[in-house]
């Protein structure tokens, strides 16, 4: 039966494609391995259901295709069977949902020792801000944006004077340190997306959103915008460079503070406690 065979082939080809095709997720570079695990678990459960349903359908088409004189069954319902199928489905759903919610709880619970890093999106570039030696970011407001103050930082906030501002250049992060990524936009929606980190979150003008992660390997990773932000959405790129603590500090030393950039006060270059916790 050609139709039954083709249906079966569709399922088999799908599985073979899944197993043998070269297109798979990028090697992970953050602590969110649990997300990958949950995806894998979901693939197993849903893959099994997909194959079972298609195979059963193909069997029915093969076994019960029209023949003269075939008398189909007349069975309006079978409560017991329907009940068992519902319970079985519910178990499968719980098996995916429960680990998913546990990992989500981790995802939304930022560890206390995470360092703040601010990412600012604007059409169509990325900027970054790191807290100075006081460990705190100053406040900001889109009303303050000007050519001298492109990120709209508050010039009167003492916490903000030593903030390190990285405009339209790569972000560096130390490997193995948890960071809370604070996400801010000054114009439209954007989304700070590094495929290797697995995490992503939209940035919304008027509020600050966040997520956290711990980079787990050094390397250079592409930053893309994952929320449509207008004509040059696809060109809004940057890079994150995850490096060892020492190199990170060498880079940090060379960055300029908000005060230095705004020329108000020559605050000493950011100096960081090394090896803290």
């Amino acid at each position, binding site marked *: 039966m050609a139709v039954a065979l083709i249906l079966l082939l569709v399922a088999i080809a799908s599985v073979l494609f899944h197993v043998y095709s070269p*297109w798979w*997720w990028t090697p992970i570079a953050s602590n969110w391995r649990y997300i990958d695990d949950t995806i894998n678990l979901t693939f197993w459960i849903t893959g099994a259901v997909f194959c079972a349903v298609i195979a059963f359908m193909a069997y029915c088409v093969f076994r019960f*295709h029209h023949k003269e004189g075939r008398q189909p069954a007349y069975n309006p319902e079978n409560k017991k069977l329907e009940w068992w199928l519902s319970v079985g489905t519910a178990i499968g759903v719980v098996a995916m949902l429960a680990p998913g919610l546990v990992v989500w709880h981790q*995802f939304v619970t930022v560890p206390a020792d995470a360092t703040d890093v601010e990412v600012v999106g604007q059409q169509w570039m990325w900027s970054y801000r790191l807290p100075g030696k006081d460990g705190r970011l100053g406040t900001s407001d889109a009303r303050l944006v000007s050519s001298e103050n492109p990120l709209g930082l508050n010039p009167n906030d003492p916490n903000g004077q030593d903030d390190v501002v990285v405009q339209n250049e790569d972000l560096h992060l130390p490997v193995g340190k948890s960071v809370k990524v604070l996400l801010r936009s000054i114009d439209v929606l954007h989304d700070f997306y590094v495929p290797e980190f697995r995490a992503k979150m939209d940035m919304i003008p008027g509020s600050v959103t966040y997520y956290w992660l711990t980079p787990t390997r050094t390397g250079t990773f592409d930053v893309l915008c*994952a929320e*449509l932000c207008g004509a040059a959405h696809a060109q809004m790129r940057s890079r994150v460079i995850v490096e060892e603590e020492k190199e990170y500090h060498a880079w940090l030393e060379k960055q300029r503070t908000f005060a230095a950039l705004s020329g108000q006060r020559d605050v000493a270059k950011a100096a960081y406690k090394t090896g803290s916790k």
Partner: protein
Amino acid sequence: MVDIPLDQVAGIPPAEVGEVELYHPRSWWTRYVFSQDAKVIAVQYSITAMSIGMVALVLSWMMRLQLGFPGTFSFIDANQYLQFITMHGMIMVIYLLTALFLGGFGNYLIPLMVGARDMVFPYVNMLSYWVYLLAVLVLAATFLVPGGPTGAGWTLYPPQAILSGTPGQDWGIVLMLASLILFIIGFTMGGLNYVVTVLQARTRGMTLMRMPLTVWGIFTATVMALLAFPALFVASVMLLLDRLLGTSFFMPTLVEMGQLAKYGGGSPILFQHLFWFFGHPEVYIVALPAFGIISDLISTHARKNIFGYRMMVWAIVAIGALSFVVWAHHMYVSGMHPYFGFFFATTTLIIAIPTAIKVYNWVLTLWRGDIHLTVPMLFALAFIVTFVNGGLTGLFLGNVVVDVPLSDTMFVVAHFHMVMGIAPIMAVFGGIYHWYPKVTGRMLNDVLGKFHFWVTFIGAYAVFFPMHYLGLLGMPRRYHDIGETSFVPASAHDLNAFMSVAALIVGFAQLVFLFNLVWSLLKGKEAGGNPWGATSLEWQTPETPPGHGNWGKNLPIVYRWAYDYSVPGAARDFVPQNEPPSGVVAQGAHS
């Protein structure tokens, strides 16, 4: 044999009220153009929806050309690409699928399937179509205005939707919102008709639990649409005010092209909540009619009763109700409060249970049937494959933490095309091949139909199944060109080219389908009144195509459910719903 008077047969209430006189057309214009007959309105809706759908199909070719062969076609740039995806999405979801399922199938099938002469408010029904046509024309006009159509994405998220960094900011977005407002007005007029007709105009004996599942699907979808579209309506009005009058419903303080814009205090997230409060039920507004149609196609062409009818009805109702408490699963990474994720992931995955029941019952209907592999049946089988595939990937995206890496990637595009693009289109095609003989009196050509089926099914699967893996790879959606990255291998570009070629072939097959529609109208095999041997009422009309008023002198009386196929001991392998049980005096003979 004893004569059993009609009023003693279970489920047949006496006729309480007399029939209302129908509106009768007096001229060619009122018969074929400004018609108040639901069957004519259905055809008008269907032709209009398919025409604008062809535009969306061509737009998809443009997108696939760009994605498969970036930089090759100088007439497609980044702005146009965004305009193409926006218009393609909006047309396909709203102006094609919603209009075709509810305005097309709904108008044609509801009165015939419940045994009514027409919709209860024929004049409003006619208005519904003309307002819909106006909405389509306003939408099409955006291709001609300065700046072209909006490129804000079909979700139209502010702030970018109305700011100058987005193509079509001048006229495109204004006309898009105006068109949506018109569409909703038009739909509401039609929708009220469908609901009231199902509730009030069923013929004697047609209890709710005897209705074909097609009617249940369209009815529930319409109730949902009447509750969901108002959210889109107010969102559109507010966004239009933000754009035209400078209000700030959705606009916070922000910078537009380096200048502080005159907005402040609004919430972009509020728009997303309103949009998806409409947008998620919308998925099921498209899916439930497809569920109903597929149930009837499988049952008819497998010559077997639908398995678990009552469970199927309750699953439709449960899915409809649950679909109103899952909307924020489209917003897991929108920046809303992260704790919403727990609630919406749970409700979303619960929907999988009634949905799975429907799938089980379809395949269990095939079990021990007598499966005729007609073109409608083939499309029904393809619906199950694509719907199961797309439904299962929904379990990835609904499970909040799994959604985080996948959202806004090609995985999402692949998922929703499979589940609410390809699957419902399979139901549309199956439905058209199934009911075309009733609408025109002629069969669609079988050879062309099978060619259309195989190319469309295998081709569409070849486009969208591999697309999931580009998403896993991390390729974002709404990119006209991925450009230089460190993580996308060259082989992914080959895959994109393959998908584009498959998409163009699928597109070509649709031309064969259109040719078949026209050719069979003139040269198709005569169908007769009931070519499939179906039980439901629309196949029992005295004339084919059904005449004005559908039923001749007397309304049909319904004695049984719509799924009496292969009843043991029956003379034929189907018993029409209006065939009296033995001993009951035939209709008209008893007064």
